[in-house]
């Protein structure tokens, strides 16, 4: 598949990080009913435990990941589903995967050129911290840590050059 590299170049030139953070804020406010905001000191990466990822292919090519600890992932699921039905790890994974999917879609929909010619994969969720992965996405990296109440979650978009 050919890739329109001009989009990745544009991400560097136009600074898409605020666009990504806006996409995250909107999704949490609408789908989770909770406000999130960029952490003022984003040096410290939040602990993992749950990592959701969605692939993006087409004019914009890369991978979006969201990582947080189990308590935070459960809180997100609880706000989405209600306390009585968001208890199983399957539902927690499902909730985080869906949030990742919607953020990826909301982000690409904000980029008019990407919206027309990008596809998303179904989400994948990894449980546990003892893992590593290597993405072939070797271009721009948009990385942010968001405050979710007292917790934090990490969102990273790795773009293919």
């Amino acid at each position, binding site marked *: 598949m050919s890739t329109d590299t001009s989009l990745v170049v544009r991400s560097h030139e136009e600074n898409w990080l605020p666009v990504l953070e806006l996409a995250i804020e909107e999704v949490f406010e609408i*789908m989770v009913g909770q406000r999130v905001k960029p952490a003022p000191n984003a040096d410290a990466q939040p602990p993992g435990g749950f990592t959701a990822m969605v692939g993006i292919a087409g004019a914009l090519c890369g991978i979006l990941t969201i990582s947080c600890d189990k308590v935070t992932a459960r809180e997100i699921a609880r706000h*989405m589903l209600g306390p009585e039905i968001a208890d199983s790890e399957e*539902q927690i994974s499902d909730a985080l995967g869906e949030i990742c*999917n*919607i953020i990826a879609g909301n982000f*690409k929909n904000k980029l008019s050129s990407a*919206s027309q*010619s990008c596809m*998303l994969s179904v989400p994948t969720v990894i449980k546990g911290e003892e893992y590593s992965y290597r993405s072939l996405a070797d271009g721009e990296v948009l990385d942010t840590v968001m405050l979710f109440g007292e917790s934090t979650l990490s969102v990273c978009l790795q773009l293919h050059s």
Partner: protein
Amino acid sequence: MHARLRDAKRAPHIGETMDAIRALIIDDSSVMRKIVERSLRQAGVELSKVSEAGNGAEALAVLGKESVDLILCDINMPVMDGLEFVKQLPTVDGAKGVPVVMITTEGSENHVVQALSAGARGYIRKPFTPEQVKEHVLPVIGKKS
């Protein structure tokens, strides 16, 4: 279409219930299926029965066994995606004419055109509010939003 829906002429007032309908919600995420159901109820749609399917093929199997009045369908799903499901829907006995509203992260004009051309009656982009569900669903079930 179900006679009760075809004959409906006005939106319910606050505190007034509309005729209950049977809905089929298709999404590979069980969390999203629950959220769509909750949004429908918050939009004022009274549901007599809610059936679920994880992809288009499962949904066709469900429709082979039971009748519904409204279908809400994701696009990106494994096995059979939402666009293929909408194309195959008329082949199921009794399902032809059942309104389908797509609920999806795919927000491009191209996807909207494809979905509507395939036979969908409405299109809602994720993330969505109950108000947006109300705006897009009530008209297709014969109610004013």
